[in-house]
């Protein structure tokens, strides 16, 4: 029917709806404002910013701040730009995410499908690691990295992030696999599949959503980490976040705000990309983990 009667829920809700949308749109605009400021100012010559036109669109559009932030800006003492530190971060994040996700998946598999005495206590202790503030472990961690001969290296940072990440990734996979029917594992056992065959052939192919959740979570956290990067990596080995800080906090010369904005966007780009590519699986995965079973 094209004409709805006047007392359906849809018609009476129209005013409320409009109000809700107006409020929501205002929130969105407010939320997007910093991004707007960053974007607009990263493509202006420095003069336009210092002249007081922080909110206005650029009159002379230029990509030069971007190029400078990437390859020639002064980071610490060297005019290298953020580029080498970007690769530092990549070579830290990728192994750390892969290793912590793999370990988390294996832990989740064992904690739900190969139960043993004390497994819930062990899981509780692993969860505990999610809630220990980073600052507390700085000194013991530094001591251990020193003993292992990994201090100041990317490998050391990878280790730190894996250790911290395993708590969360185990939590994700354990809860996901708890809803995974144990009968499937039993059927596979009767079919003659071993420990790793069951994991590889039965569980992993059904774990897409939770892998995405875990990867996004780990990637964002590790990429954005500043504290461990500043504490355990020095000079040339520093990750992107530390390099960005060094760029912005440099005490010599003129503050090149346009370069700083461009650098900040460059630093945020990978996590943004991960969200854009895998974001819709993220929500789906979170739902699947919580509602199913």
């Amino acid at each position, binding site marked *: 029917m094209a004409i709805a009667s006047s007392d359906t829920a849809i018609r009476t809700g129209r005013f409320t709806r409009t109000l809700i949308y107006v409020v929501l749109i205002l929130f969105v605009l407010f939320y997007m404002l910093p991004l707007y400021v960053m974007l607009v100012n990263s493509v202006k010559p420095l003069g336009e910013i210092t002249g007081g036109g922080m909110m206005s669109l650029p009159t002379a559009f230029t990509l030069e701040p971007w190029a400078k932030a990437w390859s020639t800006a002064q980071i610490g003492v060297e005019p290298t730009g953020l580029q080498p530190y970007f690769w530092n971060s990549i070579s830290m994040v990728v192994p750390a995410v892969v290793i912590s996700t793999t370990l988390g998946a294996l832990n989740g598999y064992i904690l739900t499908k190969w139960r043993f005495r004390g497994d819930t206590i062990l899981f509780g202790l692993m969860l505990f690691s999610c809630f220990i503030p980073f600052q507390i472990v700085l000194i013991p961690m530094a001591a251990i990295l020193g003993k292992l001969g990994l201090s100041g290296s990317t490998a050391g940072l990878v280790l730190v992030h894996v250790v911290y990440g395993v708590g969360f990734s185990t939590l994700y996979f354990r809860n996901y696999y708890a809803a995974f029917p144990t009968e*499937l594992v039993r059927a596979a056992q*009767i079919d003659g599949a071993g420990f790793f065959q069951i994991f590889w052939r039965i569980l992993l192919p059904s774990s897409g959503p939770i892998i995405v959740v875990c990867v996004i979570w780990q990637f964002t956290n590790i990429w954005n980490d500043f504290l461990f990067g500043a504490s355990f990596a020095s000079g040339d080995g520093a990750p992107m976040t530390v390099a960005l800080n060094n760029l912005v906090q440099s005490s010599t010369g003129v503050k090149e705000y346009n370069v700083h904005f461009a650098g900040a966007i460059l630093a945020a780009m990978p996590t943004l990309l991960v969200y854009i590519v895998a974001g819709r699986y993220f929500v789906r995965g979170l739902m699947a983990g919580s509602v199913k079973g």
Partner: protein
Amino acid sequence: MGFLDINNVTKSYGTVEVLHRVNIAVEEGEFLVLVGPSGCGKSTLLNMIAGLEEITSGDIRIKDSVMNGVHPSNRNIAMVFQSYALYPNMTVGQNITFGLEMHGVPKPEREKAMADVARLLQIEQLLDRKPGQLSGGQRQRVAMGRALVRNPDVFLFDEPLSNLDAKLRVDMRTEIKKLHQKLGTTIVYVTHDQIEAMTLSTRIAVMNGGYVQQLGTPKEIYDTPANLFVATFMGSPSMNLINVTVQVDGNSVYAKTQNDQGKDLRLALYEPSEALKAFDGKDVILGVRSEALTDVEGADQRSSHVEVIRNTVTVTEPAGSDTFVATTVGGAECVARMRADTDVSPGQQAEFAFNMEKAVVFDPETENRIQ
């Protein structure tokens, strides 16, 4: 020595014993059904045969070799699960051949075995689909295909029909029976549905509280239940149980009770045993199945001993094929199975015929049948 031997098997979780000294010998080609209410230990026993749970004491042998501690995949068994447990990421074909693949069977042989099974179960057109795209009945077939393809010594079924709707359940039941007749395989089948147990099995083990209450053919279980639990658990409607007093009079033994007007009734028991005569003057429980309590015209013509009483009808329940008529005898509610078009209505007096040949007597103290 049977094909599958369960000798003195017990199962404990910590200090709690959930299965007590189970002894069952299954012959080759037998269809054994383990039946009982939830928590009776039937699934635990099946899982122990499969090797999915450890045996606390006793042993399980298949073809005379002890299976304790043998990995499930090396017992040459196959199992069909209640949820079917089909691998969701694999096609039907891959599901069926996964076990063969894990046992290192070469691909051409796997393909052939799969084709044979698919033809047998008529699932050839489904081989490329994923389990998520199948209906309940189709999944059930695939689950059976996965079991059949390995050509195991023993098939284990764990409540395989309980996830299907009523009509499909009856169809699949017939199909499982046909399959068993055709292939002659040894099957152990767990269910809580006593009709499934009766229709499918060659033998039934009725379990309760971790004990096997009775092991026998469906007819033995139904006609001569070992105790009150078996009598009430098997059969629908449940067996009528009437409190009576034994009265020995010469060679005859009577069960004395009262009808619903307080008038004394004396039902002569058929071929009373010596054990029963020893109960002279004592209270016992008379068990009568509803089909042994009928209208006079519906009574078994071949029965040599029918007792007729007059009593008041309390409720009638027409079920299409029969009419169930409730009445009160000796203070106990009894259900009689009368002909569909029998002419009785509630409140009316009617004649009820007891087929005493089929009546059984239980000792109220031990709850065992007096033989």
